[in-house]
C-alpha cells in the first residue's frame, strides 16, 4: 500500500525514508538503529539519516518544561524538513512528534502546520512495515522464544497493537508467547523513574514476573526506554531472559551476535 504522502514518487522505485534515530538508541543502543536500517533496506527503502538530529524533546515535554521541549521540537522539525516518511524504532518518540508537537505549538499557527505535517509523516517501525509497506514476512532468521511488551505510547499513543505481533509470528524461528498484562506499564515513564524510583521499580518487578512466567528467552518491545528499564532490573537480578528490541529480532541478529539464549 502506498500512502498519500508518497504521491509524486516513482511507484516502482525505492522508498526514501528518513530514520529518526532517537537519543536513547544513539546513546545506549545504536545497534537498534543499524537493525532498523537493515530491515528497511530489505524491503526496498533507501534510508537517509539526518545527522543533526538529537532528541525529540519528550523528557522536557513530559516533565512540564515546554520551553525547552519547544526548542528541541524546532530542531527536530528542521532536521526532518524533507519530504517522505520518517521511521523510528520507538513508539514513544513517534507519539511525541505526532501528539506532543501540536500541543507545544498550539499558539503558533505556522509551526503548528509544520508540526502536523511532520506528525503525519512519522511512523514507528512495525507500523511502517505492516501498514505502509504491507510486509507480511519480515524474512528474519532470528530464533528463540520471545514475549512482547506493549509500550504504552506505542499501544495507546499510536494505537499500534497488532503490527509487531504479526511480524513476530511471521518469523519462522520465533516461538511467540504472550505475557499476561502485556499492556501494563513497565514503570519507566521517563522522568517518573527518576522522580519516583521506588514506585517505578515496584512496577518493573511486576512486569518482570509476568515476563518470567512465559518462560521466554527474550522480551521484546517497540520502545528502547522500556527495554532499558526492564533490562536494568534483569541485569541486577541476573535472570535468564534478555531484552532485545523488535528491530533486532526483525533484522535477525541472533546468529551474528552469537548470543546464547
Amino acid at each position, binding site marked *: 500500500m502506498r500512502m498519500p504522502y508518497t504521491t509524486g514518487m516513482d511507484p516502482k522505485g525505492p522508498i526514501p525514508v528518513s530514520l529518526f534515530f532517537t537519543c536513547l538508541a544513539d546513546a545506549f543502543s*545504536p545497534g537498534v538503529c*543499524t537493525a532498523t536500517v537493515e530491515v528497511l533496506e530489505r524491503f526496498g527503502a*533507501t534510508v537517509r539519516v539526518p545527522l543533526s538530529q538529537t532528541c525529540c524533546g519528550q523528557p522536557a515535554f513530559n516533565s*512540564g518544561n*515546554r520551553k525547552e521541549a519547544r*526548542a528541541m521540537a524546532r530542531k527536530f522539525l528542521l532536521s526532518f524538513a524533507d519530504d517522505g516518511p520518517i521511521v523510528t524504532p520507538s513508539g514513544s518518540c513517534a507519539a511525541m512528534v505526532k501528539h506532543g508537537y501540536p500541543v507545544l505549538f498550539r499558539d503558533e499557527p505556522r509551526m503548528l502546520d509544520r508540526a502536523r505535517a511532520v506528525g503525519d509523516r512519522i511512523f514507528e517501525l512495525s507500523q511502517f512495515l505492516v501498514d505502509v509497506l504491507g510486509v507480511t514476512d519480515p524474512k528474519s532468521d532470528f530464533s528463540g522464544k520471545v514475549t512482547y511488551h506493549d509500550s504504552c505510547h506505542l499501544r495507546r499513543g499510536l494505537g499500534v497493537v497488532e503490527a509487531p505481533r504479526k511480524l513476530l509470528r511471521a518469523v519462522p524461528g520465533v516461538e511467540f508467547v504472550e505475557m499476561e498484562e502485556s499492556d501494563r506499564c513497565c*514503570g519507566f515513564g521517563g522522568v517518573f523513574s527518576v522522580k519516583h524510583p521506588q514506585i517505578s521499580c*515496584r512496577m518493573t518487578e511486576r512486569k518482570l514476573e509476568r515476563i518470567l512466567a512465559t518462560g521466554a528467552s527474550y522480551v521484546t518491545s517497540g520502545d528502547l526506554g522500556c527495554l532499558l528499564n526492564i533490562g536494568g532490573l534483569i*541485569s541486577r*537480578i541476573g535472570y535468564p531472559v534478555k531484552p532485545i528490541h523488535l528491530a533486532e529480532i526483525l533484522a535477525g541478529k541472533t546468529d551474528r551476535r552469537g548470543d546464547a539464549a
Partner: protein
Amino acid sequence: MELNANAFGRNARKALLDKKLQGALGRATERFQTHRDAAIAEFPEFEATRERASRIKRDVLDHLDTYLARFIEEAEKRGAIVHVARNAAQAREIAARIARDEGVTLAVKSKSMASEEISLNEALQGAGVTVVESDLGEYIVQLAGETPSHIIAPAVHKTREEISRLFERHLGEPRTDSIPELVGMARKHLRGKFLSAGMGVSGGNFLVADTGSVVLVTNEGNGRMGTVLPRVHLAVVGIEKVIPRMADLPTFLRLLPRSATGQAISSYVSIVTGTRRAGDPEGPDRMHILLLDCGRSAILEGKYREVLKCLRCGACLNTCPVYQSVGGHAYGWVYSGPIGAVLTPLLVGLPEAAALPDASTLCGACADVCPVKIPLPDFLLELRSDVREQGLKTPGEIAAMKGYAGVMQRAGLLEHDHLFAEDHQRGNRADAEVPGQRLLLVGVDLDELDVRVLVGDLLEHRREAAAGAAPRRPEIHQHRSRRGALDDGLHEVLVGRDDLVRAVCHGGISGAGRGFSAAGRLPARGGLGYTRAPIAGEAHGNFTEIQHGSQLRYWIARRRPVRRERHCPRAVDRQG
C-alpha cells in the same frame, strides 16, 4: 480532610514498605479491575455509551448555570431546601446551621467523597452532632480514625484481621476471620443508629435537573435507609453532578456500576425527589440539598473543564499501576489515583499539590477506562507545565532541563554505522551543521590500548597541531566502561571542552569490521565513535575530521557476545 499532597513521594515510599497494605491493595484492585473488564467485555455498547455520556456531560458543563438553576427550581418545587456553598468553610457553616436548626444530635451518613472534601463530620461534630458512617468501609475507616483510601472502597487498605481487631476493641465483638460474620456485626450495631438518628447525610451521584431529584447509586442499602428513615435528609453534592433529564440517567447507570465494581447494575439505585408527600409510605419530612462549588466554577472557566465530567467510579484508580503500588493515602487528600492527581491541585490550588501531577508514568491506562473520556494524561502533562509556569519547580530540575536542551540543541548523532555512511558516500552532504563545525571521528582499538591513553594521545597531538586554538582544546573528562543494563560491551569516552561537555562516544568492541576508515586503516578489532566537536586541526593517525561539506566514511562496529560472568558479578554469585 487534612491536606498532605506535596508529600506524595514520602507517603508513597512508606506505602511501598507496608506489607499488609501491599497485599490488600493488590487483591482489591485486581478484583475490581478483573470484574470491570469482564463487565465491559459483555457490554458491546460501551464505546457508544461512553461517547454519549461524555457528550451529555460536556453539554452540562457548557451550560451549567442553566441546568443548575433548573435543578434548584425543580427541587424546591418538591419541598427540598437548596443551599449553595462557595467554599468549604461556608459549606461547613451551612451544614452546622442545618443540624442546629433541625435539632439533630445523631446523624447517619452514607458514603460521600464531597463531604470529605469539606470535612463535614468535623463540622457536624462541632455543632454537637454525633456522626456515624453507615457505609461498611467508611464505618471501618471511622472506627480506625483514618480516612478513605479509595473512592468507592474506602477501607480497601484494611485486612479482615485488622477489621476484626477494630470490632473487638470498639464494639466488643469476638474475633473472627469470617467476612459474613464481620458484616453481621456492623449491621447489628448500625441498625440501632439508623432508627434513632435525626438526620441522614448522603452524597449524590447525580442531580436530575428536570425533576429536582438526587440519585444515589449504592450497594449496601445504607444510602436508602439513611435517606428514608431519619426525619431530615441532607444531601451534599458537587454542582457538576447535574444531568439534564431523567431520560439521561440510564446512560450513566449503564456506565457507573460497570466501571466501578463490574456490576451491570448496583444493588440499589435510589432516586430521592423532594420531601415525603401525603400518601408516601416513607421519605424524609425535611430535605436539604447542599451544593458545593468549592473551586468547581473556577475549574469550569479554565482549560481543565472536562475533569468535571468525572462520575467518581474509581476505574482509573484500579487500573493505574502507580495507585496499585502505593494506594490512596499516598496522594494526601480526598481524591487519589489519576483523577486525584488532576483534581486535587485544581481544587486546593497547585502550590499545595504540585507533586501530584508527577505521580504518573503517563501510561494512559486511565484514559482507556474512563467512562466519560476525561483526557487524564493530557491534563497531567498540562498541570506539569503549569507547575513550571507558576515557578513551582525546583531550580535543580529547571537547570537540568536547560542544560539538557542546550546540549541536545548543539549536538548531533553520536554514532553512525556503515549503513548510514553509505548514504553519504553516495554523495550526500556531510551533516556538519554550520561551516567551521567539525566532526571528530575516533577509532579505538580497545583490546590493545587503554582507551584513555589512546584518546589522550590523540588529543595531545591535536593540541600540538592546533596550538593557535588552545581555548577550544577538547579534554577528556571521563572515561568508563559501561556494564550492566545492556551488556553490550560498549565502552564510553566522554569528550568535550572544559566548559561544554558535548557528547558521549561509543567504542563497540567487535570482530573485524566490514568498512574502512577515511584515515585508511581498518582496525582488526576496533570500534567507532565520534562526536561533533568544534575543534581545529588536521587528520592524524587513527582518527579523522570531517568538515562541512566533506564526505563521510565509517568504520563498522560489531558487538562481541555478552560475557555475563565478567560484567555481572552478582549474577555469578546467584548461580554459585
